[in-house]
């Protein structure tokens, strides 16, 4: 469950892009799209790398926390 939630986070960040753009919420996804439309390459790269690293970190944390919550995942 926890692992799955973390795995779906990537899709969630993608969904946030749409929601932020449609409703003009100044979030990370909106920043990426606005920068992409104006060809502001460093900002696009920065925002995409930031959110990708955040998603990876969330996955890592989920991987570390899962054995703490579920004893069956601990080895030995």
């Amino acid at each position, binding site marked *: 469950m926890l692992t799955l939630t*973390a*795995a779906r*986070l*990537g*899709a969630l*960040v*993608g*969904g946030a*892009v*749409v929601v932020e*753009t*449609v409703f003009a919420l100044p979030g990370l*996804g909106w920043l*990426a*799209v606005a*920068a*992409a*439309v104006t*060809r*502001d*390459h460093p900002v*696009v*790269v920065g*925002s*995409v790398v930031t*959110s*990708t690293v955040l*998603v*990876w970190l969330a*996955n890592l944390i989920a991987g570390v926390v899962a054995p703490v919550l579920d004893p069956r995942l601990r080895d030995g």
Partner: protein
Amino acid sequence: MRAGATARLGLFALAYWAFAPADTLVDLAIGPLLVSPCLAHPLGTDDLGRDFLAAVLQAARTAFTVAAAAAVLAPARGSAVGLCAGLGGPILDEALMRTGEIVASLPVLLLAILVAALFGGSNAALVVLVGGTRWPLIARLVRIETIALSARPFVRAAVALGASPWGIARRHLLPALAPGLAAASGIVFGGAILTEPVLALVGLGDPQVTSLGQLIANGFALVGLGWWLWLGPTAMLMLAAGLVAIATAERVEAN
């Protein structure tokens, strides 16, 4: 079973229908502006007087083409990686599967924005991106099936006869993996059919081709002038995505 077969039939009909009208918006005949839906124009005409149903069908064709290309590319790559991981040694297996996990956790849509910013809105780049990031799921499926099949007598007999791993993969494993691969490519297709419209919706699609996202974004701005300009492409997108969902759900359950 009946629902899935009907959905698949509807999807084929929709795809066939979508390939009927002229190439791009520029090629459509111009008539009276903003006509409400009627018999001559089932979805009315847009703010430049073009038949809107033809525009929506062109857009659906774009989405179908991108999704179909991604649904070929991802299973091809996924089965290649999965077979290598399943048949190769434990080190190769570990390396490929961990790489797969890293790729699987990438936010695809954000990478698509990055690609659109660097190379301009291009559907070819989008296909490569979706095909290049949606393979780990299929690779995992193929790997586990490969390992399971490798223990079966017919594969062990092939090994005993001195068949090469490539020959075993091609003659014995791939035919057995085909039904699972078909279901998995349906899942990729369902995801990809939404990716292209979403990118076009935020203004990062290919400006040369008609897209559902582009039509929805334009229609939303004009919704006070003609509700069909927003409802038409939105309904088409939901119909296509819904049919894909029903068609794949049954295939996945069957496996």
